[in-house]
């Protein structure tokens, strides 16, 4: 589990990245940077604690509530600590037609957790998501930026084994 950060500051590289993002928008429109900057924050801390969100608010000259209302609206932002690997499993129709529900059952059994939970070793968090726009290659799940497609029980076992090393 990632601990709630005591000292909230972006790494120097990410500070640069955040500056570059803010500079993309017309003057006075720095609020547009909110979603991208929250992605950078989540990349660094794994999830968005209120300290992190307050820090982002101050960087963009926003009220904290403007950040909270956005972070709670969009499903990609994790508002609680998560495991090392967050498995975002597609539960939408086309994936289900390709056996997505059976593979999901196997995955849950393999990890011994249900949606929204994290394994005891802190390695995996399981999250159900809606359509990932990869329906022709279903069943699908995503871990960070990587798509895992055409999943079968065997493939799931291999992926979990690989990531457990």
């Amino acid at each position: 589990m990632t601990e709630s950060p005591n000292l909230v500051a972006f790494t120097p590289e990410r500070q640069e990245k955040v500056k570059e993002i803010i500079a993309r928008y017309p003057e006075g429109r720095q609020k547009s940077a909110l979603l991208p900057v929250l992605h950078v924050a989540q990349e660094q801390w794994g999830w968005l604690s209120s300290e992190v969100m307050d820090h982002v608010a101050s960087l963009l000259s926003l009220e904290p509530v403007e950040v909270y209302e956005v972070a709670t609206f969009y499903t990609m932002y994790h508002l609680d600590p998560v495991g090392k690997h967050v498995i975002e499993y597609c539960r939408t129709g086309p994936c289900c037609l390709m056996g997505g529900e059976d593979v999901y059952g196997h995955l849950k059994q393999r990890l011994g957790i249900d949606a929204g939970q994290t394994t005891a070793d802190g390695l995996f968090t399981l999250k159900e998501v809606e359509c990932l726009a990869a329906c022709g290659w279903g069943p699908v799940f995503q871990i960070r930026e990587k798509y895992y497609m055409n999943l079968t029980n065997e493939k799931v076992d291999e992926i979990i084994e690989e990531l457990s090393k």
Partner: protein
Amino acid sequence: MAIKILTEHINTPGIETFDVYRQKGGYTAVEKAIKTMTPEEVVEEAKKSGVRGRGGAGFPMGMKWGFLAKPEGVPRYLVCNADESEPGTFKDHHLMKTIPHLLIEGMIISSFALGANKSFIYVRGELMYVIRILEQAIEEAKAKGFLGKNILGTGYDLELIVQPGGGAYICGEETALLESLEGKRGNPRNKPPFPAVKGLYQSPTVVNNVESISNMPWIINNGGDAYAAIGVGRSTGTKLISASGHINKPGVYEIELGVSVEEFLNSDEYCGGVRKGHHLKALVAGGSSVPILPAHLIMKTANGEDRLMSYESLSDGGFATGTMLGSGGFIVFDETACIVRNTWNFSRFYHHESCGQCSPCREGTGWMEKVLHRIEHGHGSMHDIDLLVDISKKIEGNTICPLGDAAAWPVASAIRHFRDEFMWHITNPHEASQPGAVYQGEMALV
């Protein structure tokens, strides 16, 4: 071999790089447009092409461009909608990751046509790896003088920004997308004013889908009339179809509009037929929100004519016997698919994705999901079927944005065409709620 406007070079090794894309004739349309044409002439070619919004609405793109207000001294914006999230649709994902320069070239031409100097590509946040591919391509184009200040020495400036979303289907609705781009929750705006008058930052804005914009290089190189000569009637050009479900060859295919549904489904050039040993039961032709049709109505119209992959033919018969082309999300169901379970699944999706602004949608989607859940799980009553129809009617047309309609149509159409299957779930609750149980009663399979 059918004509390929978007995907001709998609399998060329290295096509994601500037150099290979350029070798294949890439960026010649940018040169032609900004060096030899006026913005008005580019708009005119788009109008002549008849190309229609490929995100699902099917509104003519050139006409949409024509609505853009041009007050003096106010910046105008072009925003590309790459928030592809409609279940069954994955064509933009495929196009952007394989041939990113096509979209960038289209963005430069379209931005020039609209007089925009700062344009955005709003990509769903889950596709972060595609965002990185696009950003890399933008850097290359900039280094070669096709983006940035004084493009190709013409004095035209353009900055292209890739914006990630945060995971919200609703941001595919253009005004929700603009809210999101401004750093807010994705709540659709009341219209009017339309984005063409007050869009991003209250400035005149055009929002177009990835595939729509990606047609522009070909249209500039070959002319709008040549584009309009492809296809059938008012369904001009080609369309990317995302094919999924129970078929032999799932994937993204570029078709000339007007090929028959039967050819698309059964030909080896496309889906390769329903998976071996099975039969077609139902089909969703345009993404999860369009009406589902039973096998006999998708292959032939109610008048017995061949159903074609075109805006007009798919909607022939209205919602009584027809459907829509929508985003081209072609989802195939064979006889092992349970229509009730799938309808419940789609309903849950729309409930999850409702922004919560309008009460008919916020409450109605949840209510439909709940009723469908109880039918699927063996606790339904006959009254529930009419209740679902009633709720769907009360959502449809009563919300700020089309998500309400998108949630209502799959439910209403499933009941319209598969009422027996719903009734079977209710009269045989024990059997129907077993895992994998599927209605085996009389129905027309193809």
